[in-house]
């Protein structure tokens, strides 16, 4: 069953002149950690704002936890947690007060909300700053507090908009480990443009570009489906790399796999990896070029991303 689903979702601004979402179709399976990937301005934040009931779509439909999305649905909002891209909280509240306040908005009693707040402060490493005002927190502390308030009600579905922004490497590692632990228990939709984060924690990936979903697949499968594997050759000189590329173009003709040169390195993208590798080795030997390294690898998420949205970014 899909925990989140959208159908032909459209959001336009300035009387249709700016199209933030263009018939977005999205399906996020229950219990998955879904990486919502796209370049800046692709529509990730707009989609999340619609799904959390903060923004009304221009047209199309969306469901979260089986509930139709709309800003009037308190039942929907009782099942979700949300961390915005740039979380902002009341600077005059202490960290603990903020979490108690957030918990009580879900109908929890003061005592239970206090215990939950203490638990979350401990978990997010903010226990020592619990009685300090949020206005004095660093960017990383605010981000961790943001994640804590997002899960204060143990939500069924969690929306995280760029959760690792403004975190140092250690904070980022902690957050990613935390998200990974939610797998199977909570459905997580995490927007990001950091490919490495997606590869680390997400089991499913959706790539959005200019308001449209351009690819959705399991993380490991995405490379196989949307980008050819790569043969990478590194020569001892840039001249040798250029000579190889030139010879490869003659050898392969217009229909063969293309060669991309960058300094001493040449990348060949081919659907038949074994054949491309054998042809490359034969060509290097025939031209007697000084080869330093030859490597074959399957397409990475970055390769897929560049292929699918490279033109836009």
């Amino acid at each position, binding site marked *: 069953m899909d925990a989140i689903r959208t159908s032909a979702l459209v959001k336009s601004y300035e009387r249709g002149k700016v199209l933030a979402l263009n018939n977005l179709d999205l399906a996020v399976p229950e219990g998955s950690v879904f990486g919502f990937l796209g370049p800046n301005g692709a529509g990730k934040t707009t989609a999340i*704002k619609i799904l*959390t*009931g*903060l*923004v*009304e779509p221009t047209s199309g439909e969306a469901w979260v936890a089986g509930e139709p999305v709309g*800003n*009037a649905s*308190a*039942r929907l*909002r*009782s099942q*979700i947690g*949300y961390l*915005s891209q*740039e*979380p*902002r*909280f*009341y600077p*005059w509240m202490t960290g603990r007060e903020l979490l108690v*306040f*957030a918990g*009580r*908005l*879900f*109908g929890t009693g003061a005592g239970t909300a206090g215990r939950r707040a203490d638990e979350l402060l401990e978990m997010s490493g903010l226990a020592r700053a619990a009685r300090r005002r949020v206005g004095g927190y660093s960017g990383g502390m605010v981000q961790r507090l943001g994640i804590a*308030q997002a899960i204060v009600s143990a939500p069924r579905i969690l929306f995280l908009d760029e959760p690792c922004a403004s975190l140092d490497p250690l904070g980022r590692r902690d957050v990613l480990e935390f998200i990974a632990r939610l797998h199977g228990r909570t459905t997580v939709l995490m927007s990001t443009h950091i490919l490495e984060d997606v590869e680390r924690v997400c089991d499913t990936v959706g790539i959005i570009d200019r308001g449209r979903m351009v690819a959705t697949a399991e993380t490991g499968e995405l490379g196989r489906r949307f980008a050819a594997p790569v043969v990478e050759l590194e020569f001892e000189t840039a001249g040798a790399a250029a000579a190889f590329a030139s010879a490869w173009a003659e050898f392969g003709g217009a229909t063969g796999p293309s060669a991309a040169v960058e300094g001493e390195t040449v990348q060949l993208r081919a659907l038949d990896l074994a054949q491309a590798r054998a042809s490359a080795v034969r060509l290097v030997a025939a031209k007697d070029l000084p080869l330093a390294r030859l490597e074959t690898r399957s397409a990475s998420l970055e390769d897929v991303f560049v292929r699918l949205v490279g033109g836009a970014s």
Partner: protein
Amino acid sequence: MSRRPFFVLFGKELREQVRSYRLLILGLVFVFFGLASPLFAKFTPEILKSVGTDQGVTIVLPDPTAADAVAQYVKNLSQIALFVLIFLSMGAVVAEKERGTAVFVLVKPASRLAFLSAKLAVLWAAVTGAVVLSGLCAYGYTVALFQPPVVTGFMLANLALLLHLLTFVTTTFFFSALARSQVVAGVLSFLTWILLASLGGLGTVSEFLPGRLLSAAMEAAAGVPLPWEPLVGSGALIALAFVGAVLVFRRWEP
């Protein structure tokens, strides 16, 4: 609307008013004018007389009465105190939109109606408390310096004054929900105040405007019953401003 989020938000608003010192400032301003108004009424004629005597001019002024003290009190609270009140309440909604804190609350199971109602309820409670404090101070000093005013008349005068202040607090609240910045909300609120004040000469219509409440307050202190027209007019304006605030805030998108 579930009542629980309303009370949680009400508590938060109240704490915010206290910690931002807004409640303290409001209280001090109103207490000051409550205490100072009878003093102004008592001593202004004497100051004017002494200034006139120094310059060889004889100024003849009637002896001040409790009615003058009430008139001074109504004028001060409806002008300088109202100015401060608009200044303190113009950011009620728009500040949360600007800072981004509204988003944090609105994705929780608290409706936009509860969000607004709690804010307005705390503003109203603060203004009511301030008027009560100010009224007690003004009454005490009026008794000390003049003849004691009729208690029921003085209470009715305060009621009319309170309704006048609540009307403008609620219109300011509407502009705070509508505007994109505190400055715009403030400017629109002050312009509305000036506009409504300048419509005072419009015959029958002016009877329904909140400005009529001020003269009614002064008359009430002298035992004249409050007229129904400005009560209805101000009540309608309050209802309109609140409904307007709810409608525009429902459409607001962060």
